[in-house]
């Protein structure tokens, strides 16, 4: 029994890596533009399907799909940016509806192009079992967990050391002050969408490599990313990773101990729990009102 639980913890941990990438992409755009991209999950899904096409069409290992996915997803992400930029008023609300509409478009495009069947990788290299201590996992899980850690490290470095990264942080915290410093918010918004696209692309290939995808999964991903940002609270990359791992572990435990159908439910349950008990998240800044 304990081995099962420990195995679930391990699998959940590995899954948390990709979840964190997805959540970070969502949070980055929200920070820079105060816009929640409801189509973000669909961007991840798009990347997963690109990986599928690369594998089934060209016979390559999904890893090689990453460059192609990067291009496709970043382009799409930038297109979303431009469309959102065309909103004239009430940006907070209208961008929600707009990105929701884009999500619908993407989901249906995916449905049209790739049909409704569930897909997952056929690559034996990806699926090969790797044993670490007493724990089993697919090679793809371990591989992409490491990749996501590397990317998160890179993101952290970028946000704290590079000029563009710091500009994004400046615009997130005080837009007008940033403008006064000579930072063009429009440019940093674009940058944030591109970076979010990069994160989404990698996460999508990861997802395809060790999980299953179907056209409807896009909105589920967006909701999961959102749950993680609520769990983590605002303003903390390590917080997002921990929140993501928490979700991954909770899901894995549910699948092991209960049933796989309840897997989604546990994420929602966690979400509600945090909302009621700790509204500012596990690591977020506290609110001020009495």
């Amino acid at each position, binding site marked *: 029994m304990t081995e099962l639980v420990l195995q679930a913890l391990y699998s959940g941990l590995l899954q948390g890596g990709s979840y964190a990438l997805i959540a970070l992409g969502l949070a980055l755009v*929200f920070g820079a533009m105060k*816009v*929640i991209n*409801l189509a973000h999950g669909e961007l991840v899904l798009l990347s997963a399907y690109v990986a599928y096409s690369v594998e089934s069409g060209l016979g390559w290992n999904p890893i090689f799909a990453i460059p192609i996915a990067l291009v496709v997803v970043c382009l799409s992400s930038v297109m979303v940016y431009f*469309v959102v930029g*065309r*909103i*004239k*008023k*009430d940006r*907070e*609300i*209208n961008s*929600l*509806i*707009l990105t*929701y*509409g*884009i*999500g*619908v*478009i993407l*989901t*249906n*495009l995916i*449905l*049209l192009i790739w049909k*409704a069947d569930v897909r997952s990788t056929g690559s034996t290299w990806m699926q090969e079992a790797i044993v670490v201590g007493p724990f089993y996992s697919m090679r793809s899980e371990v591989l992409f967990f490491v990749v996501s850690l590397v990317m998160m490290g890179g993101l952290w470095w970028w946000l704290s050391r590079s000029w563009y990264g710091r500009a994004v942080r400046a615009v997130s915290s005080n837009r007008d002050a940033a403008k006064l410093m000579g930072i063009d918010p429009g440019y940093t918004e674009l940058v944030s969408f591109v970076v979010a696209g990069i994160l989404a692309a990698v996460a999508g290939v990861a997802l395809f490599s060790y999980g299953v995808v179907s056209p409807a999964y896009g*909105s*589920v991903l*967006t*909701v999961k990313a*959102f*749950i993680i940002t*609520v769990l983590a609270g605002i303003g903390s990359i390590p917080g997002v990773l921990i929140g993501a791992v928490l979700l991954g572990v909770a899901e894995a435990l549910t699948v092991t101990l209960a049933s796989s*159908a*309840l897997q*989604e*439910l546990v994420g*929602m*349950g966690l*979400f*509600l729990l945090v*909302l*009621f008990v700790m*509204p500012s998240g596990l690591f977020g800044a506290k609110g001020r009102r009495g």
Partner: protein
Amino acid sequence: MKPNKTIIVMLLAVYIAVPLAFGRDNYVMSLVVASMVIGGIALSWALLGNLGGMVSFGHAAFFGVGAYASAILSMKFGVPVLVSILLGGVGAVVASLAMLPVLRLRGPYFALAILAYAHIFRILATQWTSVTGGSGGLSNIPRLPEIFGYDLSSKTGGYLVILTIVLVFAAIYQYIRCSNYGLALRAMHESEDATRVVGVNSTLLKGLMLLVSAFMCGVVGAFNAHYINFLEPDYAFSGLWVTIPIVAAIFGGYRTITGPIVGAVVVYLVDQLVFKSIIPSGHQLVLGVLLVAMIIFSPDGLLSLLRKLTRRAHVAA
């Protein structure tokens, strides 16, 4: 609202002329009924947005809960259909009570939280097999009854029922909007503190709007269940009950009361008659494009855009 000639004529038209003209054609009537169902959801969605100031992507939750509640009450507890429809609305209200804590979240967070709730209810409906029939769903849900010898379960009968439901809800919406509560709600959008400092319990008012919206949507969902006599989780909580009403409300102009209803009829009929025949699977794509286009070019709805264009034409002429 004082009754005036236009309203009376319109009422006559929808209550009498439509059934007379299309009553024989079952296909057309079923389209009309479905579009009215969408209209009801669109109305409740717009009410929450306009009065409550909250955009929701989870109205499918209320629709589905209302449907299941009513179906179960009438099937397992023998509640008469018309009563169970109302109770279905109450069921949706109970579901919305669980959503009250997320009211204090800001716009985008609220919208997503509601979406999460919708997912939860769908999963519950799929898993709670003993009560909801699980993924197989419920069939042979009791039909609408006969009243004074008139069979409400016929296509025309169903039409009259949903028409009445939607009109009553529109009247309620109008009543709230014109009342002092409506004034306070409007002010709350951008100046909530200013209202609180003069004694407005803004949290309560927002919560009440959520409950009202949930009730309306739940009743519509319940009606639909008894109209098609079949229910299953993926249908009851489908994203279509979210997307189409939103497109409809925005298309018709979500700031008005008639906008969502008119928008629903137009959008749904066009979707079913035109889009579906062009792209049978994935015709929602066009809806998505329509939504995006409208937000960018005319967020107040196509009807208001048309009005603006005709005004400009008059001025030019």
